């Protein structure tokens, strides 16, 4: 059992990486496995600095491959374990993430996106959206929360552990270098004070009871001999996934009810969109925001409803349409026209969105 540091509501002025370490502690996380990569390092730094007070565990591994797999080991041993990564680290950690997906391991990972492809920048991007949702040689049986600031980081990091352990799908907090490195005020709280109970962990290996007396030995595998054998397993996963999606999918709308121009954005870009929408409304343009919070699974029904109400869509991302691609598939059949504002690996500002929307209006929608 670890010591929780946040016992009452505490307003703090922190970087996002610090927030994530506190959130993991508040979620009673017991072990972090990690490997250095910018811009997520301070999650580890903060976690390590707090160790004497929390009594939790930490292992600095030799690479992200090991960080991913040893996190799996910790989870199989029954610990609420997690890891964090970014960019090229997220790429090589897909090996472990795909195993977690196949074996329904409650893997929790914070991804602080940086520019890509390759080493690119250590600063910021939304270019790991597709990778985090669908990386690995599989179907993307994953749950991905895309956060838009420090309160989200705290709330959803806590939630990620419960989602993972309840539904047994790998669960991600997808943020970015801005959120990791920026400082803003945040309210930390004890989850219990918000009625949140942590889902108990289970030991998959060395569970209670004696082998041969109380239980059989556990034989966990991710290899299957027959095609049909595999499909049977994956079909059952799909059923679980679809059922889970109804409970887990989250979204946020801002002035979307009467919006003629609906901005669709996730993560920190959705926050810029809010600034833009306020400005556009002042100018008499009816703009609104639809922000998927879970970008995998997407909440399809509210998405289609919001899109149906609008006259024109604007997809904006710090990537070349990675979210748009996922959304377009889900709104297939609707005829609302759309425009795009994609800045690969660069922050989208409120001004960018205002100008784009004004142009759309000028061109006559």
């Amino acid at each position, binding site marked *: 059992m670890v010591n929780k540091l946040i016992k009452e509501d505490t307003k703090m*002025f922190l970087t996002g990486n610090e927030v994530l370490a506190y959130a993991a502690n508040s979620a009673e996380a017991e072990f972090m496995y990690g490997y250095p990569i*910018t811009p997520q390092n301070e999650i580890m730094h903060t976690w390590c600095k707090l160790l004497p007070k929390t009594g939790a565990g930490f292992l600095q591994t030799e690479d992200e491959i090991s960080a991913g797999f040893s996190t799996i080991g910790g989870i199989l041993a029954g610990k609420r374990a997690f890891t964090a990564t970014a960019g090229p680290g997220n790429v090589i950690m897909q090996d472990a993430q795909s195993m977690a997906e196949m074996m329904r391991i409650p893997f929790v990972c914070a991804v602080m996106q940086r520019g890509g492809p390759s*080493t690119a*920048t*250590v*600063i910021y991007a939304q270019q790991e959206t597709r990778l985090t949702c669908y990386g690995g040689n599989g179907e993307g049986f994953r749950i991905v929360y895309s956060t838009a*600031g420090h309160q989200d980081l705290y709330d959803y990091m806590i939630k990620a552990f419960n989602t993972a352990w309840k539904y047994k799908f790998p669960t991600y907090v997808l943020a970015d270098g*801005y*959120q990791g*490195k*920026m*400082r*803003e*005020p945040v309210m930390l709280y004890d989850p219990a004070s918000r009625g949140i109970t942590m889902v108990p962990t289970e030991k998959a290996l060395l569970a209670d009871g004696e082998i041969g007396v109380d239980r059989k030995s556990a034989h966990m595998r991710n290899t299957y001999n027959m095609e049909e054998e595999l499909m049977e397993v994956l079909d059952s996963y799909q059923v679980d996934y679809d059922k889970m999606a109804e409970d887990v999918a989250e979204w946020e709308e801002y002035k979307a009810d009467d919006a003629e121009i609906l901005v669709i954005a996730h993560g*920190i870009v959705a*926050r*810029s969109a*809010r*600034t*833009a929408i*306020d400005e556009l409304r002042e100018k008499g343009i009816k703009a609104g925001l639809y922000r998927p919070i879970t970008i995998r699974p997407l909440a399809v029904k509210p998405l289609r409803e919001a899109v149906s109400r609008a006259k024109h869509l604007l997809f904006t991302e710090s990537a070349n349409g990675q979210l748009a691609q996922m959304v377009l598939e889900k709104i297939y059949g609707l005829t609302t026209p759309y425009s795009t504002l994609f800045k690969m690996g660069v*922050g*989208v*500002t*409120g*001004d*960018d969105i205002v100008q784009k929307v004004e142009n759309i209006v000028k061109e006559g929608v």
Partner: protein
Amino acid sequence: MARTKIVLAGEGGQGVQSIAKILVEAGYEANKEVLYIPNFGVEQRGGVSIAFCQIADERIGEPRYSKGDIIIMLSDRAIDRCETYVDKNSTVVYDTSVCTKKPTCECKEIIGIDANKIANEQLSARVFNIIILGVLLEATHVLELSDIKNAMELALGKKFDAKPELRELNYKALEMGMSLVAQKAGV
């Protein structure tokens, strides 16, 4: 909605991020909404270092912005890098004793100060960035001197207690920075 957008840019090692931290800490302690993004390159040292700070009365939306209200440029490279954040409503401050050129952007006002020279000749090279903090305080008028002093105490209190003359030196630098802007405004 009152929101002040500040861009602070200089060479790595000039202490840009340190004063940005003190500034936003002061804002936080004064119960303002604040948001600070350090912009950093691959290397930990060297290169242009930029801090994007916002101080506002209401919840802050966009973390990054296209144009700043006040842009402080502390080197030639910072001028090159940051003219993109300037528009007609911006106030630009640059250090004439570090930069070899003058910003050429169209804006509300360009203020040249010689903080580096003053620091070296009259105070100490170490408080150059605190002079700049004073400049910022006077140029933005969103925080009180006491807010900044409180935040300096949080960041540097231990050093000050060990060497009380440091506190005086830093206060002097702060006031010097404020007066630099006040003088320019008077001209």
